[in-house]
Structures are given as C-alpha cells and as structure tokens.
C-alpha cells in the first residue's frame, strides 16, 4: 500500500463488534496502529446503536454474538437508510457454512474465517475502503 492510502486512513472510522474481548482488543489495536479511528461494541445490539449514533465508514463484525448475531446486525444496517451504505466485513468461525443467500440483503461484502490474522483483516479493510470508494467516501478522500 502506498502513502496515498495511509493519508486516506486519517479520518476513517471503523466499528468493530465482537463479544470476545481479546479479539476486539487486538483488531482495534491493529487498525489504530494503521491510523484508523476505531469504535467498539461487545454485541450486535450495542453495535447497531453505535452505528446509528456515529455512522462509521466500515463495520467489522463477529458472527456469533449474544442478543443479536452479526448477520442480524448487518441486515439491520442495510435496512436502515442512514446506515444502508456502510459495508461490513464478517469474521466467523463458520465461514464455510454461510451461503450467499444468507448474506444477501445484509451489509456484508467480505467474510474472513477464524482463526484470522490481523494483517489479513487490515488488508481486507484497506481493499474495501480503497477499492470502491463511495461518493461520500471519495469526497472525504479529496
């Protein structure tokens, strides 16, 4: 990744949702070290509240969380007009069991299987944010 990408990071916000505190911590740290603003949530319900209050540029969510799963959370993001455009990356131990049909009508654009690598997560995030900038994201970058 070039210098240009790094500069783009500066004002990008990413919301990370996971009920495993260690995972939440390590992913957040990796992203913060790369220059992103990071918001965190310990379950789907909390994540949705945070996303509505402070719409992030991207969401990273675990699949199995209490109260609301990552899939439900991503579906609500998509169904809610103010957050409908936010892309999501799903982290899951059950990546292979998920069908395309299950992901349809959700915000999920990419899936990473556990055990995952923080490097991979960062690379995916950069590809997702840099690869197809949205109109508003492009304005941010400009």
């Amino acid at each position, binding site marked *: 990744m070039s210098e240009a990408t790094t500069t783009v990071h500066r004002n990008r916000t990413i919301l990370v949702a996971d009920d495993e505190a*260690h*995972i939440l911590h*390590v992913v957040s740290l990796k992203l913060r070290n790369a220059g992103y603003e990071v918001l965190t949530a310990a379950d789907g319900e909390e994540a949705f509240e945070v996303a509505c209050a402070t719409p992030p540029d991207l969401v990273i969510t675990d699949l199995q969380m*209490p109260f609301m799963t990552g899939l439900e959370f991503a579906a609500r993001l998509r169904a809610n007009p103010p957050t409908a455009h936010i892309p999501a990356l799903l982290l899951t*131990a059950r990546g292979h069991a998920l069908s395309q049909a299950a992901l349809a009508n959700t915000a999920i654009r990419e899936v990473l299987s556990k055990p995952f690598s923080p490097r991979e997560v960062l690379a995916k995030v950069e590809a997702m944010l840099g690869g197809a900038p949205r109109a508003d994201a492009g304005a941010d970058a400009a």
Partner: protein
Amino acid sequence: MGIGTRASMIAAAAGAAGGLAALAVSRLFAGDAQAQAIAGAVAGAACVAGAVAPFGLSLQRGVHRLRARLIAERGEAAALTPSWLKPVVAALAEAEERLAAESSRAAARVRDLEIRARVTEADLRQTAAVMNTIRDAVLVTNAYDEITSANAAAARLLGFRLPDALRKPVASVIADAALVRHITAARTTIAAGDRLQVDHSIEPSEPQPPEAAAPGPEPRLSIGAADDPPAASSPPRGETRHFEVTLAPLPGMTADPAGVVTILRDITREREISQMKSDFVSQVSHELRTPLSSINAYVEMLVDGEAKDESSRAEFYAVIKGEADRLGRLIDNMLNISRIEAGIFSMERTEVDFVAVAKQAVDFMQPQAALKRISLLHKSGPLVYTAQADRDMVLQVMLNLVSNAVKYTPEGGRVTVAVENDDASRSVMVSVADTGLGIPPDAIPRLFEKFYRIENYKRVAKGTGLGLNLVKHIVETVHRGQVGVTSKVGMGSRFWFTIPFEPAARAAA
C-alpha cells in the same frame, strides 16, 4: 323271512323305537307296495315320535337305521317287486346311488374347503400380526389404486379407519395429495423387482376426533386390530415429521404390476440426531477456534512489532498464556466427557477426605472471588467426611461448581461450600450455595446438557457449556452419586452432589 318280520326285528333292535313303533311298521309293511311301506314307516315313526316325546330322538335314529337297512337290502326286495314296477325301482335305486355318491363327494369337498379356509384364515391372521408388529406404515394398493390392505401404523399415520378404507380408491382415503401421487405413479413407473425411495414430509394436522382415530370393528379377514402395539407413527401433531417412503410394485399375473406396496418410515428422530451431531461438531470447532484465533492474532501482532512498549508486550504474553490455558481446559473437559461417555476412564479410588478437598477448591478459587469482592466460605464442622472416590475428579467437580457460583454472583455476594453426611443415601453430600442470579425454572432441566448455556447469561460470563455436563458425568456415571440444583431467580442457587460412602452401596441399590 318276510319284510314284516325283518322290519319288526330291526325296529326292536333299535330299542328306543319300542313296541308301538314295531307294531306300526310291521303292520304297514304287510302291504304289497314296498314304496308305500317305506313312506308309511317313516310317517308312522314321525307320528310315534310326536306321541312319545321323551323317546323322540332315539326313535328318529331308529327309523334312519331302518331305512338304511331297507335300502341295503333292496336287492332282495327287488325280487319280490312286481315286474312292471322293476324299471322304476331300478331307476330310483340308480338315482339314489348317484345322489349318495354325489353327496359324499360334496361333503368331502366341503371338509376340504373348510380346512383350506381355516388355513387361509390362520395365514391372514399371521400376516396381519406381522404387518401390525411393523412400526413403519405399510399400505398395499391394487391395480385400480384401491387400498387392499394396510397395517395399524398406516391407519394411524394417515388418519383412516381400517375396515372402512379397504377397497376404496387411495385418493379418497388419504388426504395427502403428494403421497397419493407417489403411490399412483409408482404402479406405472417402477419396473418389476425395483423399488423407489423418496423423502416425504407430513405437516402437522388438526387433532382428529377420538372416534375417527380409534380402529373400528374388524372384518374377519382384514388386517389391523384394536389391540396392536402402539406404532412409532401417529398422525403428526405440532411438528413436521419426515419419512423415507419406499414404493415397490407387486408382481401380477401379467406383465403389468398388480399393485403397489408403500412403506413409510419415520426418520424424524434420525434427522434430529444427525442435526445434533453436526451442531456438536460446529459448536466444538467454534469453541476451539475462538481461543486459537486470539493466540494466532496476538503472536502475529508481536511478530509485526505492533506492541509498542514493554507493558503492551507483557499484556500480549498474558493473553496468549490465558487463551492457551483455556484451550487446554476445553480439550481436557471434552476428552474427559468423551471418555466417561464411552466408559473408558480410569479412576483411582481412595478414601477421600471431602472437607480437605473442599478447602482446596475454595483456596484455589479465592483470587477470582476476591476480584468481585465475593466472600467465598467453607463451612463444615470438625467431623471428617470420607467416601471411596477419585480425589482429582471430586476436586474437578467442586472447582467447576465454585467457579460457576463465582461467575454468576454479582460483586459483593457470597458463595458457601458445605460438606455433610446424608445418612439416608449413605453418602457424603457437598453443596455450593450462592447469592447470584439464580436459574430460570425452564432452564433447569437442560442445565446439565453438553454445551447448554442460558441464553441471557452468556453475556454475564464466558463458558463452554461443558462444566456442568462434566460434573454430572463424574458424579453420576463414575461415582454412582447424584447431582441436583435448587434455585430462585434473583435469590441465588444451591448446587449439590452426593458420593456414596462405599462404591457398592448405590451400585447394588
């Protein structure tokens, strides 16, 4: 000897006929028309029978014998017959012989048919018994798609009354259109000797009136009886049931099949078990991958130099160690449960001092309790409570129970471990009581299931849902003890277990 004399002798020999009959017969037979004489004798005997009621039956028999003798001696009688009557008598005699032969053949045939009918009936009853013993629903239809036989399981499952349904078109008896299509299509599409298996689901139906569900009176040779053993299948209520349907054509006299036999096997439970197995595998893999995921991620962060200072690095090392321990405990728990379930565990049975073990468990858990300012107490008298048990396993049980109590008790609460004797069951009883969240009544029956966790409590504390399952296995399977819980939401829970003093005490009970 003249006819009259012979007749009277025979009549006398018949005994019961008595003098009156003999007199009447001899008088009549003195006439010259033999035919008249026979008819007269019979008529006379009938009169006498009416007159001498107590002797009626014997008299009848006597007359019959008399008549038989007369017929037998017809040859001699013929000699006395006037010549003009001879052809008539001969024709009569011939006709009578033919009649007798025909009659005996018919009687033999009737006997034969009766035997065959009894054999067939016995065969049918056996077939019916065999069919009704089968738990699968079995239905046979003929070339016109009419039901020719069905077992009790089929009647119950498909909701028809057996005698009523016989010889009726299958489509008019069975409401399930898809199943009817399978049956009618099978007759023409499946080659003789082949069979077709299809999956079929039956949706829950409205409960039937009891009158319709009960088998009606049985026609003699139909299959299905009121006293059948209960079959596995019954009209589905409340849940969709899954069936493996086997269809096979029945061979007929011509190339076309004579009908179709349809067997519905309920595979709902098998499906559930296979679902449980696959859930178990995915649950295990999730539980194993979560700590592994953390370990991988933190190691990579260290390698990449993402931990900027010594304190972050120390924190990372601690996370890695903690997650590795968690992984180890998880694997141990799972292996222990599997070993106990498979019956391949090794236990070291010694005289265990339960108070000492309880103190050890309390000491071990004290740091965790202190973090939440929970007072963790051990409360036992000065007595010594011992039983034959595996010390390590008992410690594991106590640690699991105390650890749960600390996990689910809010800050500032109290956890109490007590050891006592339960003389009634000749056991040592250990209880762990807390002032924690308590357990909802609907969760209690499932609490000791593998991987079961109370949904709303997942956020309160981490866990795999294996701890209590292992407790149950160690106490009940390995030590033949008992485990239980009483709880009140918001007030706390009390888990207890008993271990018999002597290994044989419970095993023999």
